[in-house]
């Protein structure tokens, strides 16, 4: 009789052992989709595939709708309407567009114009794919069109107006971070308690992974030695967003000089004091905007601004040296081989 009892209890133990491995507990679900001219990946912690699917697809829709509003290349977008009517009239826009515009102006003001969404006329001159550098005269000619102070927002009427004709809004430095904010908000509305939204390199995470650990985000090495994504550091993230601006995303090298897409609004030329800047903030839009701003400002002024704003940042300067704010201690791991 004793043998049977023993046998049964052993069997029970085995079942428990196997049971603890089977996916009844919350686990991770991940999906990717091409949106906003880039690749969006959403990971959520959920009890079932169905719950995860519904929430993720809903967030994809939210990002797609927002993308249609601020698409620089589509004539139908609200952004194009604002640009077309520069110097002519104020354009009525939807709440999301108004909101992202206000966030952009906030970053512009706080950074003293290092970030400027009216950089469009200068960006337009460069062709990074065909390695075309505009002439000094062309760059100089368009500089008066670049000034965020010439954007007039009327919150009451929900309108945006560009004061000067030929001004061009380019929300490329903030739209992806804002899209991550929208997607996270939509996930939470669907009852998701933990997840990570990555709109290309603009990432926002909330809650904890199924193993009760914070999400881990790798930061790309700005000077890759091989083809696969080499990391320079990794950081733990929960309830925060991270964005990175680097001189390696869109660039060409001419006469030994690197020309990239992060232009100083005051000169129209690429800023050269940094290789890459990552900013951690509560909001994706803010992290996205400030990563550009800090890049333009350079390591010293950039770190100063980050501290003043209460944000964390990691800056890799033009020599490859890594600067960080004190708040990153314990959360950031620098990869050993760098």
């Amino acid at each position, binding site marked *: 009789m004793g043998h049977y009892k023993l046998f049964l209890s052993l069997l029970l133990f085995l079942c428990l052992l196997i049971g603890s491995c089977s996916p009844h507990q919350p686990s991770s679900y991940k999906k990717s989709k091409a949106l906003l001219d880039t690749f969006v990946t959403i990971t959520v912690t959920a009890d079932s595939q169905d719950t995860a699917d519904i929430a993720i697809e809903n967030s994809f829709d939210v990002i797609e709708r927002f993308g249609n509003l601020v698409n620089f290349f589509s004539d139908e977008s609200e952004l194009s309407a604002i640009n077309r009517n520069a110097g002519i009239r104020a354009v009525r826009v939807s709440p999301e567009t108004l909101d992202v515009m206000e966030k952009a102006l906030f970053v512009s003001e706080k950074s003293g114009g290092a970030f400027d969404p009216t950089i469009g006329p200068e960006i337009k001159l460069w062709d990074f794919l065909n390695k075309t550098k505009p002439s000094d005269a062309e760059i100089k000619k368009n500089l008066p069109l670049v000034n965020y102070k010439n954007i007039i927002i009327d919150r009451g009427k929900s309108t945006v107006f560009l004061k000067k004709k030929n001004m061009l809004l380019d929300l490329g430095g903030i739209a992806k971070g804002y899209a991550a904010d929208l997607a996270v908000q939509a996930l939470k509305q669907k009852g998701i308690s933990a997840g990570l939204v990555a709109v290309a390199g603009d990432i926002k995470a909330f809650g904890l992974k199924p193993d009760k650990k914070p999400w881990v985000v790798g930061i790309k090495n700005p000077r890759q030695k091989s083809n696969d994504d080499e990391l320079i550091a990794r950081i733990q993230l929960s309830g925060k967003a991270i964005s990175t601006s680097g001189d390696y995303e869109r660039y060409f090298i001419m006469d030994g000089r690197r020309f990239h897409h992060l232009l100083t609004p005051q000169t129209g030329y690429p800023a050269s004091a940094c290789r*890459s800047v990552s900013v951690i903030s509560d909001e994706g839009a803010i992290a996205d905007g400030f990563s550009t701003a800090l890049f333009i400002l350079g390591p010293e002024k950039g770190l100063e601004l980050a501290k003043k704003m209460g944000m964390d940042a990691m800056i890799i300067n033009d020599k490859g040296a890594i600067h960080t704010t004190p708040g990153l201690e314990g959360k950031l791991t620098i990869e050993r081989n760098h």
Partner: protein
Amino acid sequence: MKETIKNTTMADRLLFLFLILASIAGIFISRDALSQGSDVSIEIDGKPAYTLPLYTDRLLSIDGPYGPILIEIQGKRVRVKESHCPNQLCVREGWISKGVIVCLPNKLVIIVGSGKKDRQRGIDAITG
């Protein structure tokens, strides 16, 4: 033989069966988790020290507490060629083309794994 079996209790036999099955299952599970590799990562004292491609032959000398440790990569395999640690387990492990060589006295771990997967293991997203 018959007598030795007779001398064991039912609990003994069940325990033995359970342990054998559990560890064999464990071997398969852990093998599944490890994919065919192309990178050699060497960790000393729990920290990553080197990552080397498996397809480049080379001889590497690392300073350990018992003197230099010679690690050899050749023909897509890796081994500890020479070590002055007392038990020599790492040297006797011989060539591996995937998996792990551990040398406790030297606090050395050599891991052969798919480089990309390995380095990004535990990474949920990449920024930049």
